[in-house]
């Protein structure tokens, strides 16, 4: 089993293209694996992309390893970053501007279209949809020159596609974009603001990235604190999750022996989520705590998974600028 956090992919019509995360993040993807899910649908682009010999190998065995194509590697990296980028104030990994990621993904998708026309099946979104999502968020950015250049490329690509409306919109963005700083991350939380009363029991927990939407919570370990408090009227369970970048519908679930004993709806505060519920009775033993949308079993990430990804992402700071995404460069420039 390979968790998706370790396997960046690009979905194609009739197949998947996989990359190894370590190589991709190190800026040296090496090889890529094309896996077929529907050989008939894949054959037209497959043979063009990898050549007759490799295509025959893929048709015979269901997959083939070939040298990575930079266009596909770039797209895979951007799609992975959108889902799994471990932004963390605590770890010093800046959060990435979703609008910049959209814009770059639009350009990368168009580049893959130019490389292997008809290969993408549209599931990953089209350049048009990505550009639409990006355009409103890019009026001011610390990387205005780069945004201008990407917009011009997209404009000419849209024009080739006879999409006049988007070609003009991309041109307008190229003209209008201004240098400046954008505020898109909230500051880390300050004090807990817990209620009065005696603390009966307390503990810490970590967020499993697979349980929360991307770009919402700080990726560091041990960001969840909880305690059971004897308040004047009732016994309360209070939960706080430090480090929030965006709002989402999240809860904390207290579990004992795999059973959910209490659900605490969490609300976004300044740079943190917090919530509390009254408990029917005081829990007699220590219990576990899970933050997410539900407490059901999922194919989650382990602490080791997360540590590995964090360390791989950290090595990217040493990469030359052209090997990093524009969103990363903008985030770094915004910091210093």
């Amino acid at each position: 089993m390979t968790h998706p956090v370790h396997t960046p992919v690009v979905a194609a019509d009739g197949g998947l293209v996989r990359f190894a995360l370590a190589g991709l993040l190190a800026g040296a993807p090496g090889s890529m694996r094309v896996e077929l899910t529907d050989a008939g649908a894949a054959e037209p682009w497959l043979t063009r992309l990898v050549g007759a010999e490799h295509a025959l190998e893929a048709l015979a065995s269901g997959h083939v390893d070939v040298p990575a194509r930079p266009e596909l590697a770039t797209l895979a990296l951007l799609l992975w970053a959108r889902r799994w980028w471990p932004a963390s104030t605590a770890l010093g990994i800046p959060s990435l501007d979703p609008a910049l990621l959209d814009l770059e993904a639009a350009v990368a998708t168009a580049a893959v279209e130019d490389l292997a026309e008809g290969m993408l099946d549209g599931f990953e979104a089209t350049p048009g949809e990505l550009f639409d999502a990006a355009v409103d968020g890019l009026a001011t950015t610390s990387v205005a020159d780069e945004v201008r250049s990407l917009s011009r490329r997209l404009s000419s690509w849209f024009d080739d596609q006879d999409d006049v409306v988007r070609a003009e919109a991309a041109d307008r963005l190229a003209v209008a974009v201004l240098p400046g700083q954008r505020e898109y991350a909230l500051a880390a939380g300050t004090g807990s603001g817990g209620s009065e009363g005696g603390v009966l029991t307390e503990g810490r927990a970590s967020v499993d990235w697979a349980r929360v939407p991307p770009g919402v919570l700080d990726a560091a370990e041990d960001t969840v604190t909880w305690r059971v408090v004897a308040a004047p009227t009732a016994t309360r369970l209070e939960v706080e999750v430090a480090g929030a970048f965006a709002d989402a519908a999240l809860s904390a679930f207290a579990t004992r022996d795999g059973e959910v004993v209490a659900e605490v709806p969490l609300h976004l505060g300044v740079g943190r989520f917090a919530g509390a519920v009254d408990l029917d009775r005081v829990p007699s033993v220590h219990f576990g705590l899970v933050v997410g949308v539900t407490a059901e079993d999922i194919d989650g990430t382990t602490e080791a998974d997360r540590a590995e990804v964090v360390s791989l992402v950290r090595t990217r700071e040493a990469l030359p600028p052209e090997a990093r995404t524009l969103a990363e460069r903008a985030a770094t420039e915004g910091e210093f």
Partner: protein
Amino acid sequence: MTGSGKLRLRSAVLEAAWHRIPGVEVLSAGDGGPLTRTVKKIIDPLVVRTAARPKLGRPLLEPAAANELTELLLADAPRLRATAAWFGHLKRQRRALRITAGNVQDVCFPLAYELATGCGMPGPDAPETAASALRELHGEGGEAGVAQLTAYLADPRAAADLTAGLHRRWHTDAGLEPDDAVALLGAFAETLTDTAWLAGSAAGHALGLALRRPGGAGALARAAEAVSGAPAPDLGLQRGDRTAVPPLRRQDEAGPELLERSVERRVRATLRRLPAGERGPVADLVDDEVRRVAAGFGLGLPALATCFALGVVLAPALRPLDGVAPGSAPGFARQLNAQVAREGYVLHARRALAGTTPLTPRPDAELVRELREFGKQFLGRLWIRLHGFDVRGDLPADAADVRALVTGVVRSTSLDLRTKVRRALVARLPELEAVS
């Protein structure tokens, strides 16, 4: 098995044939072969019709299939040249009309082929024709055939005659007992041999007619459960215990159920499917359809009704969201289900849409229901495909073709759901879950 030395990559066969067709540059890739989208939007569905000729759609072709594919393509060369010429006009008009929906090739390739079919090479009025075709495609302007159909069915005398004719033909005499028919289909689904397919060829009409008798729905559900090894979910075939006689007009439909769709809805599908030059007057189309409606499962050709019946007994096992199909299901059903269940988006949806691995800040509960009804959606698509075959008189040739047809419909159902999942997630670009 033929030696693999004789097998050729399909794209190499297409490229070689394509080189012999002059004047199709706008449909060609840099290497001189057809663009991937030319293959997907024109050659496969319109020239070769791979849905009805699955042997010509395989990635590796036997010499005979390679020759047949080449001949089909070359025989259509004049129309392909006209298609290329029409595509140029459509591109220019699309710019002028500032249409942005969809990929220009995805949208305009089939339309160019349609114009080439109806008008041949573009003439002096081509810009106007192209513009009005685009306007019609993007939802402006009505279609003449649909207007004629509506007018015809609104005539009280014609409507009364047609309704009387339909009721006269609406038999319930099944001939074969449902359990026997299902046993034949079960044997086919298990062995997938030509012999079993032939033996079962009467089963479709028999089952379809049995559904019109009291207790028909229950009998079919029990039978389907016996074959598929899974409790039959609501397959959306009919509202009640027995199939109601379908109404003539859409406005009289009681619901969306497959077998109770109006004659009007069925004929509208035919109007969409057949170019104006290739179909008879509306009154004839309606007469044909009334005869078809009266046959089991509303499909005139027995082999097509049996294909649908096969779909009915396989459908309960198609539950990709639940993972693996029960071991008691036929191997073919398990294989189909596994094919979908393996898809990245399903693996994803099994958690994401059930609200466990959220992709969006607020997961969409509505989609879960859609995904749970895979079997029902599969049957809806299968019926529409078979109805199209029936209208054209196309038939699967043997057991392998039936298998390919059903597999293709499962795939297109899956792609449709994939699109829905994607739409639900479009606000945040999805991680595509690749779980091995």
